């Protein structure tokens, strides 16, 4: 009963691990290329891809027996986004007239 959630093979997880290491190398390489204002965006995008892979596959959110797990994860990041974005609403507009 408890095994149906973890139907991925060991090889899959190792491949994923290697993929994450590759993405890390990519993010370091990209940091040394001058992309202007896009550097932080690229870095955070890659970080988000890595985090998503960890959440979906290492933490077994994909294929979890209920949608509730996914809802909890999304809710957590959503409210973090609220904290960050509404605070920025203040800081970004302080210099406006």
């Amino acid at each position, binding site marked *: *009963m*408890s*095994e149906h959630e*973890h139907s991925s093979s*060991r090889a899959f*997880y*190792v491949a*994923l*691990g290697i993929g*994450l*290491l590759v993405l*890390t*190398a990519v*993010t*370091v390489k990209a*940091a*040394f*290329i*001058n*992309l202007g204002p896009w*550097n*932080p965006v690229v*870095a*955070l995008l*890659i*970080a988000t891809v*890595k*985090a998503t892979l*960890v*959440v979906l596959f*290492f*933490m077994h959110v994909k294929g979890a*027996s*209920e949608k*509730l*797990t996914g809802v*909890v*994860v999304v*809710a*957590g*990041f959503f*409210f*973090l986004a609220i*904290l*960050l974005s509404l*605070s*920025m609403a203040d*800081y*970004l507009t302080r210099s406006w007239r």
Partner: protein
Amino acid sequence: MEQQKNTASLGMWLFLVTEIMFFGGLFCAYLIYRLMHFNAFAAGSQSLDIRWGAFNTAVLLVSSLTVVLAVRAAQDGSRKQLVAYLVITILLGLTFLGVKAIEYKEKFEKHHVPGPTFSFTEKFDDNGKQIPVASNEAELFFSLYFAMTGMHALHMIIGCGLFTVLTVLAWKGHYSPGYYTPIENAGLYWHLVDIIWIYLFPLLYLISRHS
């Protein structure tokens, strides 16, 4: 049993949400100050050793893999493999902490630790242009650096402690394909600590590396 497993799992996920919001406050501070004092933050970031940072990122990612493999071993009933993977995970965690200790020592020697001894004379290397930065603003960067990596390291220590306890219990044969919930839930905690580092690395070490 299934209901208990699902219950414990949901409980751990909710706890992880609290950890996301807990670190979130620090990320909020970081975000705001980076925008306000970009040059100083970039200079501070450039003074960090990217090799250690990247190495530590790799260490943690591999440790997440070993955690997943440990859970897999518990599922399959392989006690020896379970213990082995747990031990490797702990060793990787300790490696991470060892590297952080080296990095902190280096910061201490360079007088980059905030407080009365702080002194930052490095410049922001902006595509070859050397821009001087305010020492006090750099101190703000390092305040956040130590707060964020320090809090992260504290969570790593707790994780290592947790896994140590589980390793002992696993060695004694407490876990089986029918019951390995603590391994799984400790694993969830470890993955989250890894995810936090996945974001900390680019934010702290990679602010402006191109030149």
